[in-house]
């Protein structure tokens, strides 16, 4: 590499640097309501080719994985065919997988997670589906194992989701049969996507380790019954009035690669049975 020896760092350079620095600080200070449309406009225009390129690369990776998965399934089936008693069990598993997809039914959009190298990956996620595919702002984002987050902003073919690990994310939660309610948030100070807190549990209520925690359906955004995590232990007892519990998350946002964006019309539904976390209630249809 050839490096020149000219005189650098002139006043003009410093002035340009100062202008850029001040501009970036001004942008940082902008309110969220201005930042999101500005970012959205950049994604729709200048960044459209690179986002498209990245989406195609993600599809390509997915297709390659599909081929590998199909090859593995073919091998498994060949082995099962050789071992007839095992074939029946294999069929049962495949039927169970098909039933899972059928249970969720309609009212959702599939999306790839286009992971970024930035520090915010895992706090916000860029998804490969947008307004044209039916994604709406605030729509819940779930993975097969449970809650991932909610849609923050939507473009024509992409959208940005705020993962539960984001410091501003909150979701109303409940445990067991809906008798105990609280609010789940990411635990500040811990690695993003590693642990979460269940706050606001009445002091009289005690939760054993391993208790599943799901969305309560309160708030009109998240359907009832989406797995959030499981209780790992008690954290604190604030003033003897309420307890806070540590939760092991059902989904680590930074590791999510394929998600479902639920339509807001499903906010009143109960999805407990779909995720096989808790025993399905007798009436799993829309709540009154």
């Amino acid at each position: 590499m050839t490096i020149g020896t000219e005189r650098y760092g002139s006043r003009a350079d410093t002035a340009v640097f100062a202008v850029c620095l001040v501009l970036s600080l001004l942008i940082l200070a902008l309110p969220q309501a201005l930042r999101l449309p500005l970012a959205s406009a950049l994604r729709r225009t200048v960044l459209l080719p690179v986002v498209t390129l990245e989406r195609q690369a993600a599809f390509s990776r997915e297709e390659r994985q599909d081929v590998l998965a199909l090859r593995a399934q073919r091998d498994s089936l060949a082995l099962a065919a050789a071992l007839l008693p095992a074939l029946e069990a294999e069929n049962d598993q495949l039927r169970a997988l098909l039933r899972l997809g059928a249970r969720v039914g309609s009212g959702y959009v599939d999306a790839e997670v286009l992971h970024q190298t930035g520090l915010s990956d895992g706090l916000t996620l860029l998804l490969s589906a947008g307004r044209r595919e039916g994604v709406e702002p605030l729509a819940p984002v779930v993975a097969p194992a449970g809650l991932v987050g909610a849609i923050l902003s939507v473009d024509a073919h992409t959208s940005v989701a705020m993962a539960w690990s984001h410091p501003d994310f909150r979701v109303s939660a409940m445990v067991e049969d809906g008798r105990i309610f609280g609010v789940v948030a990411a635990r500040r100070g811990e690695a993003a996507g590693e642990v979460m807190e269940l706050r606001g549990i009445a002091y009289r209520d005690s939760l054993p380790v391993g208790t599943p925690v799901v969305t309560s359906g309160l708030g009109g955004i998240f359907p009832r019954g989406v797995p959030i995590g499981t209780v790992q232990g008690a954290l604190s007892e604030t003033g003897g009035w309420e307890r806070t519990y540590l939760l092991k998350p059902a989904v680590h946002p930074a590791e999510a690669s394929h998600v479902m964006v639920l339509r807001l019309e499903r906010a009143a539904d109960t999805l407990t049975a779909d995720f096989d976390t808790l025993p399905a209630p007798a009436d799993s249809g829309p709540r009154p």
Partner: protein
Amino acid sequence: MRVPADRLKLAAALLILVAAHFVLRPRFAASRFAPDLVLVALLFLAIRTRPAVGAVAGFVVGLLTDAVVPTTFGAGAFALTIIGFAAGWLKAVVFADNLLVNALIVFAASWLRDVLQVAASNQLRGGALGLQLLVLSPAAALSTAVAALVALFVLRGWLAAAPSR
């Protein structure tokens, strides 16, 4: 107006790096540690031009990368403006004709970018901050430095010619 051939070669090399960033990165299983080829391209440009060009390029690249993670919109622009300017300024004091020196500069720039971005975005604290800056960021910086070495080797014919202004 005729554009010098070495500038065209440099522009082509930078375009290849940016395209490779968006094509190759989704294929990495561990995206947290995937090399940031856009940062590599920015550094290659900055140390071959004036500090002002590095600062402006850093600001623009930072703004665009911020657009895909809008909750920290502006933090990347802030960090990369400083990195771009510093890389351009370093040109006056570092006569980097050595691959390892280049890799060291890329490693330091990548890590410093994360430090500045974390400070500007104010989204991590405590253990998460320590994990990010002491484990994840150095690991990502290492993969970026290795990618920069590979890019320097593969594109050496195009990157060797350095426009003076």
